[in-house]
């Protein structure tokens, strides 16, 4: 393995890819193999080297928090996992499927992963209910009644049961983000990706979104969360990754990161955001 990144992982892509499909899913299900594996991932924007050898393994049911300074490549990395961004070198394997140019693999992985964006990205021309049911109906081919039933349950779960027929523009930011979470969950994904889900929210709305995310974490969902909400990290994260200049500089449990960070850059950054 190259030395370009500080943090290494034990699993190699071959460990997963050499197994038969059934063995892969069984091993991932039992937590013997990671459900997300990033191996030496590099990406360039033109000449700019954004991701410089990222290694990461995430096991089923784990909650991962990714943090680091602005421009360090956090968004870029999390977006490579469902192929909103391409990468030029390395391997990413999600739920036993290798991300490649093959469109079928991409579609398969996108069905297994839900994503929540900083700017919500709800569809403004559709009602809340339609926002949530669109993908289950069109992609999973569920009958409309089933999709709506699931959608209404999810709206209850995220705490806004009576907004189903409103349009996104009629909701507060916190409500919109919870709809976005419900929309992603409606596809019954195995992995949820969050890219700074509370950064665009007013302070009084941050908690209502974090509460939903904590509940989701406790229900056993595999989550990769880019966030600077350290309270959230402390409460539910299994591991934290510190990104700086396109590399993972340090990783560890919240306990290790907060009480005993090894790297100077981590210490400096934490001191800045924790005041």
């Amino acid at each position: 393995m190259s030395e370009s990144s500080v943090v290494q992982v034990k699993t190699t892509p071959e460990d997963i890819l050499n197994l038969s499909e059934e063995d892969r899913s069984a091993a991932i299900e039992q937590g013997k193999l990671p459900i997300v594996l990033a191996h030496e991932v590099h990406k360039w924007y033109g000449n700019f080297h954004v991701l410089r050898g990222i290694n990461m393994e995430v096991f089923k049911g784990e909650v991962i928090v990714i943090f680091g300074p602005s421009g360090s490549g956090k968004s870029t990395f999390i977006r490579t996992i469902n192929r909103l961004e391409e990468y030029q070198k390395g391997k990413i394997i999600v739920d036993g499927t290798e991300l490649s140019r093959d469109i079928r693999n991409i579609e398969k992985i996108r069905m297994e992963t839900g994503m929540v964006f900083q700017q919500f990205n709800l569809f403004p021309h559709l009602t809340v209910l339609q926002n949530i049911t669109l993908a289950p109906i069109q992609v999973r081919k569920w009958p409309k009644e089933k999709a709506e039933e699931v959608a209404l349950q999810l709206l209850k779960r995220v705490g806004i049961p009576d907004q189903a027929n409103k349009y996104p523009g009629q909701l507060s930011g916190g409500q919109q983000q919870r709809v976005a979470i419900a929309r992603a969950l409606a596809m019954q994904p195995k992995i949820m990706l969050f890219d700074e889900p509370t950064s665009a929210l007013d302070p009084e709305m941050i908690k209502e979104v974090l509460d939903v995310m904590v509940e989701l974490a406790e229900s056993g969902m595999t989550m990769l969360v880019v966030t600077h909400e350290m309270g959230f990290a402390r409460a539910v994260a299994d591991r934290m990754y510190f990104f700086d200049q396109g590399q993972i500089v340090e990783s560890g449990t919240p306990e290790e990161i907060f009480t005993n960070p090894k790297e100077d850059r981590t210490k400096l950054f934490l001191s800045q955001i924790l005041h």
Partner: protein
Amino acid sequence: MMNREPEQYTEGEVLAPPTERYTILGWLHKNLFSTWYYSLLTLVTLYIVYAILKPTLIWAFQQAEWQVVVVNLRLFMVGQYPADQIFRIWLALHLLAFTAGLAWAIWLPKARRLGAFLLLIPLALAALPFISTTSKINWVIFAVAALLGWALGIWQPRRMRRPLLILLLAYFPILIFLISGVEPILKLVKTNLWGGLLLTMLLAVVGITVSFPLGILLALGRQSKLPIVKLFSVLYIEIIRGVPLVTVLFMAQLMLPLFLPPQIKIDNVLRAMAGIILFAAAYMAENVRGGLQAIPKGQHEAAWALGLNGFQTMVFIILPQALRNVIPVIVGQFIALFKDTSLVAIVGLLDLLGIASTVLAQPEFIGHQREVYLFIAMIYWVFSYAMSYASRRLEVALGVGER
């Protein structure tokens, strides 16, 4: 001197904004004569208006012989369309009125006063002294149909949404069926008999309706990752937009037969239609492209992240938003096209303008250019203005521009 009412302010209270009340003199002063150069401008403008209006009005009411318009009214409206088949045009109009009434009730339920005002227009037309009794009756039926559609929409706004959409989609084929006819159900009326305002309208409606899907395809083609598709779309759009409509019309007249097998003969009107459609599609494509580009990237990404494929993303997420945003632009294009169709007179078609020259060629009406051209200018203006007014209202009703 503004003559503002004195008002008393008490500190700390919440106050309504001060209302400014003017006397007539105060208004005149503020808006027309506030400084000496505004006063001068006002006077000069008033003089110009007077200088134009006076001779025009004297001519229009004392010298002009409007007989030429009255006698040829049917020619101006429908050209050579057989008299015993004109009921089909009326039928199409009544259906249009019904649809418009329904749409008005569902989309603009609050604009009652304006609706009532619009309803007066067909009734006013029915009251015109020089039109036939059949036309009078038909204008009344037209108003009734509009009122009927409106009442239905007000009565069952939710239930009527779907029928309205179906009606809107089906209107175009029904229109063509009614005007052209399909043997043996409805007597065929050859396109060379279509003329006047009817032909002008049909050219514009067919042009915009058929160019709409073509324009969407071209706009998508222009953004395509497939190099050949992209190249074709770009070339097509840029070539067509780089030449005047007249040349496209001549091309359609002269070149179209080259592309078709010899046993298929298409007449002048269809060729002109093809030319107009090809022309309008290029502009439509650019309008649609503008709408597509205005959709934020996050919308694409959210759709992809949910597992929708490229096609589903377009159909369910991007196009509905993009098209809604470009409705006003498309209406604008329609109005422009409505006026531009007058160019078909150059390739020998008898649209409104073409009819004008045939009327003027009749020996008894030689020298009546003023009456005839003023009349058709009025028709173009009334329709263009009505459509642009309606589109502005539609824009407000659709909430385009706000989010």
